[in-house]
């Protein structure tokens, strides 16, 4: 048992570091992204510039085949890249849906011409993609989606509404699941497409979040035309294609970002509570110890996964606990941080109050992360069914044509 690289891994890590150190600057702290205070438009420009640089130097989409703009790396090499890149101020946050989810689906289901047309610009960051899955009436029960797709000749007409679409307002293309046959059973009448977000009839409206920001949108479709050649998978097979996408989503979702044990510990070491340093307080120590054990547990769970990849094996299912544990921990730590600051904890700080802001943003961010990409409850279903093999809950909609399933109490 050790934490050492194999000789191959060590030489790859060196290669990564050599390139990163001459093309990016090191972070001063884990929270230091180098993007603080940057507006979304500038951040996107900045990210596109960085993505292009990666592409030119052969560091784009490590897990993709070379012919589509990737590097053809092994999974462990991708991990090493991620570890090293996280030490540097490198822009991110715009291409994950495309490169992590849409790209792999195109590779499985698109024609060769389409792959050649769409994948390299996706890898280069020239074209941004979004994911049009959830609907107002279909969140955790995603297969309950209703956006209508009707085929006439070789053109589909789309009508309906999607929601929680991250980045729809700056995306060039989207992957879309629709209901093509409402008389079939729920999972059987779905069809999957990709489309140009500038198609006539596509309307993007930002959603204001509890934090005040607007990272995601509602997307309305009114008689939007999609050529049949942009269908991915067979008609009625959309659920299968969507599951491939979601599998990649789960691999892509990592830790909740925000204050963690170390930040809370530093705060407790520097801040007074009841006339002494907060770190001397028994209840503070008790909580800190719990968070340390959770952070450590997640860190070494990750190491177990990396070790499996290093041996060329598929990692066990233990990574499925990451989002549940880190989201809830973040919510607790954010509350703790503000609590330590007493009444001042809720006062929105001026530019000098970065620490206050970090806990306040964690307070809102945690409430979101516990829902995004699978709620805590859905993830527990996934753990119990797919990891532990427990049976599915009884479903009231099984075997019934979709258009006969009750969808409200009216």
């Amino acid at each position, binding site marked *: 048992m*050790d934490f050492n690289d194999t000789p191959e891994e060590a030489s790859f890590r060196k290669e990564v570091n050599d390139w990163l150190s001459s093309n990016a600057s090191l972070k001063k702290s884990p929270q230091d992204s180098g993007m603080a205070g940057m507006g979304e438009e500038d951040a996107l420009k900045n990210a596109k510039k960085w993505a292009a640089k990666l592409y030119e130097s052969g560091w784009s989409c490590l897990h993709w085949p070379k012919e589509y703009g990737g590097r053809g790396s092994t999974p462990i090499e991708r991990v090493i890249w991620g570890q090293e890149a996280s030490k540097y101020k490198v822009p991110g946050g715009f291409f994950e849906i495309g490169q992590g989810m849409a790209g792999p689906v195109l590779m499985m289901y698109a024609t060769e011409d389409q792959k050649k047309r769409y994948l390299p610009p996706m890898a280069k960051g020239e074209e941004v993609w979004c994911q049009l899955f959830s609907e107002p009436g279909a969140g955790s029960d995603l297969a309950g989606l209703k956006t209508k797709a009707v085929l006439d000749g070789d053109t589909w007409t789309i009508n309906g509404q999607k929601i929680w679409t991250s980045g729809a307002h700056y995306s060039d293309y989207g992957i879309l699941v629709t209901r093509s046959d409402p008389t079939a059973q729920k999972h059987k009448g779905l069809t999957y497409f990709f489309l140009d977000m500038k198609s006539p009839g596509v309307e993007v409206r930002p959603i204001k979040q509890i934090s005040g920001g607007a990272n995601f949108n509602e997307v309305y479709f009114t008689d939007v035309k999609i050529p049949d050649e942009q269908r991915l998978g067979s008609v009625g097979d959309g659920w299968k294609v969507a599951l491939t996408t979601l599998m990649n989503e789960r691999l892509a979702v990592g830790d909740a970002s925000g204050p963690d044990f170390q930040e809370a510990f530093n705060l407790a070491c520097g801040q007074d509570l009841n006339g002494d340093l907060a770190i001397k307080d028994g209840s503070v120590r008790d909580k800190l110890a719990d968070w340390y054990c959770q952070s450590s*547990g997640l860190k070494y769970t990750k190491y177990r996964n990396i070790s499996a990849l290093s041996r060329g094996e598929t990692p066990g299912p233990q990574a499925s*606990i990451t989002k549940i544990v880190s989201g809830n921990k973040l919510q607790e730590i954010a509350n703790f941080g503000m609590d330590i600051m007493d009444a001042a904890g809720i006062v929105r700080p001026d530019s000098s109050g970065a620490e206050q802001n970090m806990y306040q943003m964690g307070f809102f961010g945690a409430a979101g992360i516990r829902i995004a990409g699978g709620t805590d409850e859905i993830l527990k279903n996934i753990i119990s069914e797919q990891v532990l093999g427990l049976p599915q809950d009884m479903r009231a909609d099984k075997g019934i044509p979709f258009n006969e399933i009750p969808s409200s109490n009216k």
Partner: protein
Amino acid sequence: MNFEFSSDQILLKDQARKFLEGEESLKKAREVLENDTLYDENLWKSIIEMGWTATTIPEEFDGLGLGYLELCVIAEELGRSLAPTPFSSSVYLATEALVRLGSPEQQKTYLPKLASGEIIGTLAHNETITAPTEKNISCKLENGQLTGTKIAVTDGDIANFAVVSAKEEGKVKLCIVDLNASNIEIEPQNTLDPSRSHASISFKSTKVEILSSNDNGWEDLQKILERAAVLYAFEQLGGAEACMDMAKEYAMGRFAFGRPIASFQAIKHKIADMYIAVELARSNCYFGAWALSTDAPELTTAAATSRISASQAFNECSKENIQTHGGMGFTWEFDCHLYYRRCRQLAANIGSQAIWKDKLINSLERANQI
């Protein structure tokens, strides 16, 4: 990165599990619980024959000279099967104390016999209803003679000798006491987990040997407890996972409202919570195992982390296993309570959650100052 047990160690673990199943370790735990026996002598003999008591003892003292990773996987299986033997006291505590602190003569005297199972050792540390501290230890050592009383000594009425904490001129020292010597009174104590025996031991001017000759007896003991904590954590991890598996199996087979209760989200989420606790504990235990086997500077942190995490996992899984079983889980007949009892016993054995949490934060404060 190779943060995983080797294929040989995994094989050893599988063998250990099969061996303990074959020995009906769990059934024997119930027998010890229900009868007047102190431990299962046949199981203990078989364990000795397997060589497990000799695992980490150096070859020069007739041990196997294997690493701590091997001992960790054995500990996990002993925990899973609730093995009713003095293994933890004798191997994690007494043997460790001798290997780490013993003089060459003491090692020569004790280690070969510990390896062969000829003698059993334990640690006697607690004295009152509060946790022992450097200040409140009241057993006295004068002119090589020990006076005072230790309570809740696990295997105190089985062991041939005990490592005992006592004060000499205000400083804590560790001594070795032959429990068959005169001027010792051993009283069995009934506990919440009678599948493991406990006793109070009173010393009256009992002749003892000093174990560690330096003045840092308290620090020396903390080092031993840290090392043992990783091994106890593996027992707790094994117990936790056994409870999760029991809950799962019962929920699959138990029908209510026309379907298996395992299909209700209230039960599924409960079992998913057990899984989360077990996986966090497992990853932290691996960290502890690595630190223990490499004598890493992180050992204090790693030991406390694995101990806290595994105690929490066993607590979560043993209580929710009863809950999943409903009324049957509350019966004497079902095995749920054996794990519930052992969970509490192991949680108390080398210091409470509060103590280990304090150790963890202390250690992180020290690391932060460097």
